[in-house]
């Protein structure tokens, strides 16, 4: 018997960790992984609420989130590869040609 708020706190924590990672990490791949982490946190709260409300819709949304995550990973990693080919670096701070 677990109060739902525990799940929610866990998911919030995961999400927060994802955001923090996105903010403090420099490696572009790690940034993407932080995004995945955020998505997972959201998924957890989806599932928790689905159980709490006794409906399966939450599960469905998790599927959609996963699909989007997969697509995002595929495209993102492709972008990473092409960026690496041109800029020879994975550090986002060095990929800043767009400024000024």
């Amino acid at each position: 018997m677990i109060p739902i708020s525990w799940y929610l706190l866990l998911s919030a924590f995961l999400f927060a960790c994802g955001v923090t990672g996105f903010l403090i990490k420099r490696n572009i791949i790690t940034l993407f992984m932080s995004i995945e982490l955020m998505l997972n946190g959201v998924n957890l709260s989806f599932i928790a609420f689905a159980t709490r409300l006794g409906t399966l819709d939450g599960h469905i949304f998790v599927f959609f989130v996963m699909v989007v995550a997969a697509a995002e990973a595929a495209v993102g990693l492709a972008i990473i590869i092409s960026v690496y080919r041109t800029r020879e670096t994975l550090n986002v701070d060095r990929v800043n040609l767009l400024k000024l």
Partner: protein
Amino acid sequence: MTPLFQLWLVPILPLIGALTNGLLGKRFSKSAVATVALTATAASFVVACIQAAILLQSGSPALEQYYGTWIQAGNFSVNFGIYLDHLSLIMMLIVTGVGFLIHVYSVAYMEHEGGYYRFFSYLNFFMFFMLTLVLANNYLLMFVGWEGVGLASYLLIGFFFLKDSAANAGKKAFLTNRVGDFGFLIALFLLIQHFGTLHYGTLFVVQNSSLSHMPTETSAGVLTAIGLLMLVGACGKSAQIPLYVWLPDAMEGPTPVSALIHAATMVTAGVYMVCRSNAIFSRAPIALLAVAIIGTLTSFFAATIGITQTDIKRVLAYSTVSQLGYMFMAAGVAAYSASVFHLMTHAFFKALLFLGAGSVIHGIGGEQDMRKMGGLRKYMPWTFWTMLIATFAIAGIPPFAGFFSKDEILWQVFSSPHGSKIFWLMGAITAFMTSFYMFRLIFLTFTGEYRGAKPDAHSSHGSDDQGHGTPHESPWLMLAPLVLLGVLSIVGGWVGIGNRFEHFLDPVIQKVSTEQVSAQNGEAVTTPVGEGEGAAGESKSLENILMGVSVLIAFSGLALAWFLYVKRPELPEQIASSLGGVYRLVLNKYWIDELYSAVIIGPLVAFSRIVLWQTIDQKVIDGTVNESAVAARDVSQVIRQQQSGLVRSYAGWIAAGAAAVVAYMVWMGTR
């Protein structure tokens, strides 16, 4: 209504031709271009004839067709509609018929000019707008045509746009017309304000019109204002004092253009408009008087100038102005039918004259100065005879067309309640001068010896690249229209015998006489009392006398011309020198252009340059723009520091913003 009654076809066909030539003409061969243009015009003419027949045998005063709403603002609405009554019928037939003939003529005349397709596309374009003008069922649509023909004439005057004079002439015509259009527009606004509609049917048809119940304005009133403003518009378009200056310069355009636009059709738009608005003018005697005065002055004035001009086309131009003045004079004495009648005959013979002049110019390789012509009769007999016919017509010698119309006008001026003897006198003198300078033209051009040096191939008009040896007759393609128009110039006037023409126009003209208006009820107005016949019934003898007088005048003009230019060719110079200043004054067209440029244009330009341009535009407007741009740049200088190109800082902002949003939502949710 019979399925054959498809008025929209009449304007649309030339438009199709214009678009076809204008868009694809570059790829067409000359013959193809000509075919397209001619087919469009001819078809339009045929359709026009069919429509006319339908109207006449339908017996109804007017037929109208709606093709949907154009503007819908409150209870004021303008719709695309075509309105065919006897007036617009005549105009339509003139435009399409003469237009077609001139198209035929142009095929040969423009043979060696550049921009062949451009020319015909413009010409068809003009036809479209002119037909819109005459067939519109409301003033706004008419105004569209009005502007459209202005545009077309601008394009055609400036057809040889490589020539500075041509381009300037085009600009001049356009600007001068704008002045007139300004007045016309205000007149339309007044109409909308006071009658809430621009639709002829609503305005003029007696039963449902607030206008036709208005009394005649003894003193100045709204109708007077509308009438005067319309007159301004008409002056612009029909080259009346003070806005006539553009028409002589418009002769820079190719001669067929001068014939079609600046003699036969467009310049008569003003007359058409005045006659169309007769219900208004008849109720505004002051405006009517103004029309008459301006018409009379213009005709007299232009005639005097015409005497001294040596450029064949300019002579014709001034005679056109003078004849238009005649029409206005007629309209000014509420003799609208006479005015329209003269409009028609004038369309015939003046078009013929221009085409003949064009044929002459064409024949001697672009020379336009009459002093370098002469003796062309034996080189180009067809041209000579046809032009002679036209001259007889314009001089008002029976039984040619001009005689009937001119005589009608003079009689009306003399007899109608709005008319006066002074008008008649001036008109008569003008008639005298007219016949004088017209025969002067004929004699100078066709009789005597050929004074032209060997004309160079590349002179005034365009790039006429066929080297002319001796003068030669024009090809049959140009002569055929001459002949046809010649026939029309002879028989065209006969329709006026016995006031038939006047009666034909009765349904259009609202007879407004003082007592009827004081009676002020519909049925009194609806029973038309033929003013003309009434007058004619009483004083047939007087009319005959006047007729004789005008014929006499015409012949005397002929005689004088003969005396001066055939019998004693040296006299004119002597006279000119003896007259001295006066002659120079007239020769230089009274320095009207110089006057305008000094009084109006100069100050205007100076004002524009100094105040509008250097002060308002450069300092205020540009200054505002530049300053705001500078300010934006400075602000951006500060802000753009934020665009570091570092993804993570952007992410940081996003996170902060999201947190703020969440906090706000929670706060809203928990209070």
